[in-house]
């Protein structure tokens, strides 16, 4: 149960909005952080916290693509498929990923490590092709980078190639 674990946090979130329902998206995020997806049980609990009916929570959950209604792999790879990335190599990127992972989009590797999805524009159109894996962006991808990212993630659970505070082109001074 969320309420037991995050009592104060939840109260703090609810207090930010003049109407309780405003706290719905933040609480759904909290549930997803906790469980990796949003279960019916979580929807019921959040409905209770916000004086909503479960259907009211459900309709909100299903509108937004980032709320997982089913468990996903440990690393959720989301490849941008929109035009700007597609112009510079989405298909190639997907090819690499599929070969390397042995799965196609919409699937999860048998070990549960990776789920591969395609998503729409992630606002890194100048640095395509790109993908988001869980919270991190990986941009300007090459086959070498992709291999390293997947290997690092499998091994260490993280990868240093994730983009930091974004600026492109990089400032002159920062160029190596």
């Amino acid at each position, binding site marked *: 149960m969320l309420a037991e674990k995050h009592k104060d946090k939840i109260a703090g979130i609810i207090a930010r909005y003049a109407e309780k329902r405003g706290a719905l998206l933040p609480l759904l995020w909290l549930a997803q952080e906790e469980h990796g997806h949003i279960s*019916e049980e979580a929807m019921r609990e959040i409905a209770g916290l916000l004086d909503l009916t479960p259907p009211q929570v459900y309709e909100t959950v299903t509108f937004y693509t980032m709320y997982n209604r089913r468990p996903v792999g440990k690393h959720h790879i989301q490849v941008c498929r929109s035009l700007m990335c597609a112009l510079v190599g989405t298909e190639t990127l997907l090819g690499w990923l599929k070969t390397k992972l042995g799965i196609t989009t919409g699937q999860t590797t048998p070990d549960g490590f990776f789920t591969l999805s395609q998503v729409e524009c992630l606002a890194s159109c100048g640095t395509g092709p790109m993908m988001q894996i869980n919270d991190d962006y990986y941009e300007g991808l090459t086959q070498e980078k992709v291999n390293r990212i997947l290997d690092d993630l499998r091994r260490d659970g993280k990868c240093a190639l994730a983009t930091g505070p974004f600026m492109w082109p990089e400032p002159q001074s920062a160029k190596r």
Partner: protein
Amino acid sequence: MADMVNILIDGKPLQVEKGTLVIEAARRIGVMIPHFCYHPKLKPDANCRMCLVEVEKMPKLQTSCSTVVAEGMAVRTNTPLVEEAHKSVLEFILANHPLDCPICDQGGRCDLQDFSHQYTPTASEFTDVKRVFQKEYFSPLIEKEMNRCVTCLRCVRYCDEVMDVKALASINRGTMSEISHFGAHPLDCEFCGGCVQICPVGAFVNRLSLYEFRPWMMKRADTTCGYCGDGCTLTLQTRDQQVIEVMSAQGDGRNNGDLCARGYFGFQFVNHPERLTTPLVRQADGRLHPATWDEVLPLLAERLTRLKLAHGAGAIGGLISARCTNEDLYVFQKFMRLAIGSPHLDSSARYGHVNAVRALRRVQGTNRWTVSYEDIVQADALLLIGTQVTATNPIVGLKVKEAVKKRGAKLLTIETLLPSVETTSNIANLSDVHLMVPPGRHGAAVQGLVKAVFDESLVEPGLSQSAGDFVERTRAAAMALPYPDGLDERTLRTIVKTFATARRGVILIGQDLLQTPGGLEATVNLLDLLLLTGKLTQEGWGLAPLTEENNEQGAIEMGASAEYLPGPAEVAEGATRARLAAAWKEDIPSAKGMRLLEMIEAARTGSLKALLIVGENPVRSLPASTKVAEALEHLDLLVVQELFLTETARLADVVLPASSYAEKNGTFTNSEGAVQRVRQGLEPIGDSRPDWEILSALSVSMGYPLEYGDTKEILNEIRAVLPGYRILGVSVEPARVDTQTMTRYLAGGFAEDLAVRYKATPDGTAGGSLKGYPWTLLIGQSLFHSGALSTKAQGLLEIQKEGRLVMNPADAHRLGLSEGDCARLTSATGEATVPVAMLGRVPEGTLFFPDSFREALAPILSVTPDPMTGVPYGKLCRVAVTKKVGGS
């Protein structure tokens, strides 16, 4: 006129109120703009884009459903551009719409079909693959076919805006948007049927009539619902002696087209296979055997006459259901008083509504409300006390919701309810101020309200001059009381202050107040409150007692009780009795008649020899402790007119098959006093006959002919004795306070029982004598049933098939009970075992059980009669609860 604007629609000038929507303005001059998502009950959403029109000076087409008229606005609804836009929206919808019109129940009454026909679209250019939503099970009563959906969201919006239920979800998005409930769970809601009724296409259809008909094959009868006192107009759709479907889509009637589960899905008792189709007579073998009317009527007449000769007319009593029509009730009381000559008669209005009428008559000299549903909608403060309005009077509940949600009225509630959001609506969720009262404490709360009138200095200044004695003595009586234990003083004061400072306000009271000890006094005290604050005689203000059964108001007005003649007029008043006797050309028994419990008692003791019961089932309605069955078995003759072989009918010597409301004509009088038509939709089932007809035939056999050709003749006679008993169609003219009566009350009438009315009522919940029985069990109305009749309606059984003991989840947790477990209840009189359910709105310490299944609790319940009105108070019971382990 400042509030009017001048506009042009298709060149025609017209004047409409400010704020009118263009689509509405157009309709006033007969211009119908096609639409899907617009509905007058809902806020404009402008999502279907069907209603586009040209508005001069606006570059783009505008949606007429969301555009408000403005002075000088010129609208065109029939230009080529507009036509093209309408056609194009249809084209978009039809691109993915299945071509299943031939098997769609909406076929023939479908907006999409009608508009498509109107715009005769050319063959669709859509040649790609249609979107397909997989069929999924949605609910036992409502079929969902998403491929037909036009995504107008009327269902979702209705469920939220009108019903305040919020059980429907519009899920996913874009092209894949669809309507759902919660995940793959079947629909769990109030089952008002509103989504089916408001769907412009066949996306939601009634499963009870799925594929049963084509609309044009059905016969229609506009009639009035026979369940609760709200008096909804509904249309019975029948085919070959079967009720196929019920709807109220015409949108007129006091219910404005809205219905509840009972009205919409509760019709199948009519064609139930167990309906009685012939008279039954108990033979020497002790069993009931079929007989013909020709056999049974003379037999019955003879036995009644013999008993009358042997023991006097006073040995015969009569009891009738307040679900009967006014015509049935009128003939019944006349039959009892004249054909039999007995003063002993009663109706099921005895269970509570007599308290309300007695109080109204005493203080304001009316038998009815001084307000109407319109006044509820237009009130800016509503005070609900013990109404359980959603379950008991769902349509009045909608009026309250409309007042609060659409018009911003302040809602004050004093109910045995906790605010708690579930997918059935809960009036306490809408309250501005809510006071949770334990069962049986409503009267104490009312005393607190009157005290608060003084504490908040809300007494109408003029009243102290005109009725100083009343003010001062009531003040003294009320102020001598402390604020009731366990009820928050501040809340009581806020409620009174909010109410008394509103511009117009209505007090609604219901069964939790009227049917519990002190109900009569509390009702009078509420009238005191209105008097003290100077509101009683003001336009739009009043006290509105709600009735549980459809025709309780009629039962009293028709004189179907021991103390009242038609009018009602007091039997005890010589002058009125004489006037009626003159009209009837017959003497009216003047002896004090016995009421329900007294008749049962007399049967037990043997002074009552025969009882004629019409549509009532006291063996079920009264608890085992009253030993009704035993008493009835003592009778020499028990006659029961019924639809089904009920517990009571099983004991009868003669059972007569009666017709249901679907098979007869007549009138019902609802809570607010609207007299509405009951129209026959079917021929009587089997050999059944309307109750009035049975009584009339019996009277002929007995040689005291009360002959009527049809119900119109009866109604004409009713009108002759009750001037003004008119059919009031769509509007109601509320009664007016009788100044003479009020003055008499203020001048001293009030004092008769002042001390009783303002006597402190101890908080029973804390009472020591109740040791060992720490829980209060409240028997009340379920939203899905009404009396026992509804338990014969398969549709309603699909929603609620049994009585469950409803308790707060925290209590259940404490008792180690989960949903569906069995609980053992013990009271001072016995013990019973029932399954449990949990609901957050039931206060801790309180248990709720639906009245329609009360027989399951018969061993533990008991009644106390009201010393004044004889109301058998039986809603409350102190019990102990444990989890039942093992067995079943």
